[in-house]
């Protein structure tokens, strides 16, 4: 006989069963005890729509377009995210900031159109890495399912975070756990 791989190996017992063993009662109760024990164990199931699981802080989900503290859009439509995107999911159109729009856009150039095709997107986070203006980030929200392809073209209004000046309530909601971390709690 060869050397056993572990010390837990057990040779097969081929002796004929005696009458107690042939009744199988002991083994049935052993099995039932295991079943019964599982009734009192902690349930493993997460009842998803009612109960949600916290995602990691670095979970890469749906994108957001960032604003600065005064609520101005940070994106300058430089196109670096679109270049970095391996799935070519990002398209944008740039425009020049006009007089009187200084409250809306941080710099002289801004994205008039900004679209991400969430069906193409693979949530790799290269756009986040490429952005020099701190404008695009991925969030901890997963992208919801939809019935048609056009429902996955996320435009600027779907991506921009709530304005911290005009919509502080929504901004707090979007912040999630981050503001508590900033305060160091």
């Amino acid at each position, binding site marked *: 006989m060869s050397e056993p791989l572990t010390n837990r190996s057990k040779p097969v017992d081929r002796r004929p069963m005696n009458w107690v063993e042939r009744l199988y009662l002991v083994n049935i109760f052993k099995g039932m005890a295991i079943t019964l024990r599982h009734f009192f164990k902690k349930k493993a199931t997460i009842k998803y729509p009612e109960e*949600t699981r916290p995602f990691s802080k670095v979970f890469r989900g749906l994108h957001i377009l960032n604003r600065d503290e005064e609520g101005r859009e940070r994106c300058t439509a430089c196109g670096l995210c679109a270049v970095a995107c391996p799935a070519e999911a990002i398209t944008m159109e740039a425009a020049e900031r006009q007089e009187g729009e200084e409250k809306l856009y941080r710099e002289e150039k801004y994205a008039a159109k900004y679209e991400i095709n969430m069906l*193409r997107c693979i949530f790799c986070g290269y756009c986040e890495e490429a952005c020099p203006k701190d404008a695009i980030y991925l969030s901890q929200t*997963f992208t*919801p*399912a939809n*019935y048609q392809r056009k429902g996955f073209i996320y435009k600027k209004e779907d991506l921009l975070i709530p304005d911290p000046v005009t919509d502080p309530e929504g901004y707090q909601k*979007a*912040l999630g756990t*981050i503001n508590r971390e900033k305060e160091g709690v």
Partner: protein
Amino acid sequence: MRPVSYNIKKKPLEADISMAEMPEGHQGQGFFATTLDNVIGLARKNSLWPLPFATSCCGIEFMATMAATYDIARFGSERVGFSPRQCDLLMVMGTIAKKMGPVVKQVYLQMAEPRWVIAVGACASSGGIFDTYSVLQGIDQVVPVDVYVPGCPPRPEAILDGLMRIQDLVGKESLRRRNSEQYKALLESYGIQ
């Protein structure tokens, strides 16, 4: 560090289907009468039998959805069948190469009506990063798709979300939809009689 944790904007569903808690009907002491449509819709949507057509990593994520932590059985879909004849829901998960396209179509054809299709993941729903000569740019080129689930791969939560959208669709479907002219035209556009 990221500026915010969540994207709280809600993207509305295309061709939105509003959910009803209880079908319309007459109610009295000890009885409730409703239309056959609603009862059949209710029965169908809570016993969808999925056929997983898993070709890559999204299939692994679906296995996690089936397992105890997410437990797809809570939605009545634990009976995963590997025979198209007995299944209602074709779940295509993973990259479908162009050579695989006819196979997906064959499987779809072998399923009995009513049948639904859900495309899970970037590759199955649009080709994802594989914009090449050999990969099908979305399975809706060969079979009609009811629900798309984005992600690469999508989390089990996202797959369950897709399944719930399918349930909404199934519960609301009229019994005559499969005989309608629009449905025939849709199948005709895919070359299915």
